[in-house]
C-alpha cells in the first residue's frame, strides 16, 4: 500500500481567491445559484459594475454578502444555513418554486463544490461510499442550470488528484460540468473535452500536469 503524502506547496489561490477568480467571469444580468463551500464566498467578490441575481436553493433570489455581526436574522439564511443579507429588489419564494426555477432552465450558472470532476465533465459531489451521504439540491441544479461551474482544491488532502479520467465516487450528474476553478487552474469543458485555459498566478503548467489525473488539452492563449 502506498503512503499518500501531502502536496508540496506550489502557490496558487486561496479559497477566497478561487471565489474571486470565478466571480470575475460572471456577466451582468446572470442568474447564478451558489452551492455550499467555496461558492458561498462569491457574494463579496462580485465585480463593480456587474449586477447578478444570486440564488440560494432555499428560495432566495438576490443574496447579498454575509450578515454583519449583530445583524444576523434567523429567518434569512443561504444554502449553507448561514445568515445573509439581501440586495435591493431581492425576492423570496418557497422551495418548490425555487427548484422550478432550477429545473425549468432559468439559471445561467450554478456554482458547486466538487469531490471529483472527470475528463468529460462528470461531477461527483454528494457521497463518498462508507461516509455520510447528503445530496441537497445538487442533482436538481446540474439537471437544470445552463452551465455548471465546479470549484474545488486541485488535489485532495492526501495529495490525490480530483480531476480524474473517470469519477470513482457516485455521480451527481454525467457530462454536466462546463468549467472547473481550482487553486491552481481554470479548465473549460468544450465538446466533452477538458481544456486548460489558465494557470493561477505563479503556477507552472508542469505542476498542473503533475496534479491532474485526467487528460486535457492546453489552450493558454
Amino acid at each position, binding site marked *: 500500500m502506498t503512503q499518500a503524502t501531502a502536496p508540496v506547496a506550489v502557490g496558487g489561490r486561496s479559497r477566497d481567491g478561487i471565489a474571486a477568480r470565478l466571480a470575475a467571469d460572471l456577466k451582468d444580468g446572470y442568474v447564478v445559484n451558489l452551492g455550499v463551500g467555496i461558492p458561498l464566498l462569491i457574494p463579496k467578490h462580485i465585480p463593480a459594475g456587474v449586477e447578478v441575481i444570486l440564488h440560494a436553493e432555499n428560495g432566495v433570489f438576490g443574496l447579498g454578502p454575509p450578515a454583519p455581526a449583530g*445583524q444576523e436574522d434567523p429567518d434569512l439564511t443561504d444554502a449553507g444555513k448561514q445568515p445573509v443579507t439581501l*440586495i435591493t429588489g431581492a425576492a423570496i419564494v*418557497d422551495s418548490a418554486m425555487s427548484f422550478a426555477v432550477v*429545473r425549468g432552465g432559468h439559471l445561467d450558472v450554478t456554482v458547486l463544490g466538487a469531490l471529483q470532476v472527470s475528463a468529460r465533465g462528470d461531477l461527483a459531489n454528494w457521497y463518498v461510499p462508507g461516509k455520510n451521504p447528503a445530496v441537497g439540491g445538487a442533482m436538481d441544479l446540474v439537471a437544470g442550470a445552463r452551465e455548471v461551474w465546479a470549484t474545488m482544491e486541485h488535489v485532495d488532502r492526501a495529495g490525490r488528484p480530483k480531476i480524474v479520467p473517470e469519477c470513482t465516487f457516485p455521480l451527481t450528474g454525467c457530462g454536466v460540468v462546463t468549467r472547473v476553478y481550482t487553486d491552481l487552474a481554470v479548465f473549460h469543458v468544450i465538446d466533452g473535452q477538458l481544456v486548460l485555459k489558465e494557470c493561477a498566478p505563479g503556477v507552472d503548467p508542469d505542476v498542473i500536469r503533475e496534479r491532474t489525473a485526467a487528460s486535457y488539452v492546453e489552450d493558454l492563449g
Partner: protein
Amino acid sequence: MIDKFRTDPAVALAPIPSGSCIAVGGFGSSGRPDTLLDALCDLDRRDLHVVVNNVGSDFTGIGRLLAEGRIRRLTASFPVLPEFYDVYFAGNVELELIPQGTLAERLRAGGAGIPAFYTPSGAGTMLADGTFPLGYDASGDVAACMPERERREFGGREHVLEYGIVADFALVKACQGDRRGNLRFRLSARNFNPLAAMSGRYTFAEVEHVVEAGELGPDDIHLPGVFVDEVLLASAESPRQPAYSVIPGATS
C-alpha cells in the same frame, strides 16, 4: 364560526398515533416548527416516518426523536447531524435520500392531487438506479435499497418517475396566522413550510404572531387556511432577531 386556534400543543398533537408519516417544514433551523416538534417529542410516539429536508445539528426536535429510536424512516435531502448516520449505519433508521427539488415537488404534488411526475433530477445516478442503501442490518450489511425509479425519455433526455407524498400529518411554522388558518411566512423561513402543509392530510401550524381574520390581505396570504387545520402560538423561547439587512446596490 371557523376557529382553528388551539392553545396547548400537547393536547393538539395527542391524536397523532405511532406509525404516522409526518411532513415537517424548515430549512436548517430557519422556519423549523420547534414548538410543535418539542410537543411531539414529549408524546411517546414511535415508528414514525418523518419527511423533512434536514435533521438539525442538535438533539432537539427530530434529532431527539432519532436519538430515542422513534423514527423508522427519514425522507430527506440533507441530513446534517453526524449522529444520524451512526443510527443509519447501525440499522436503526431507514434513509430515503431525495434530491431537494424532488422532495419539495413530491410534497407539493401530494398535496395537489398529482400522484407522480417525471423529473430529470437524479436520472442516471445512484439515487435512481436501485443501488442506494435504504437501510442496513445489525451486522452493517445493506438490508434494502431504495427502489429503482421508472425511467422515460422526453426530448431525448432521461427522466425518472417520482411519487407525490401524502403525509398523515404536517408540522409547519409561519410568521403570522389567523383563525381561519391563513398563513404568511417571513423571508427564507418560508422554504418547505407551504409544501409540507399541502402534503399533510391534517396540518398543524405554529405562528409567531396571531392576527385577526382580515388583517392579512387576500393578496398577502402565502398559504390559504384550507391547507391548515390547527394554529398554535410558537413558544416565545424560540430566539430570533427582527431585523434583516438590505445592502443597497450590493452587487452593482
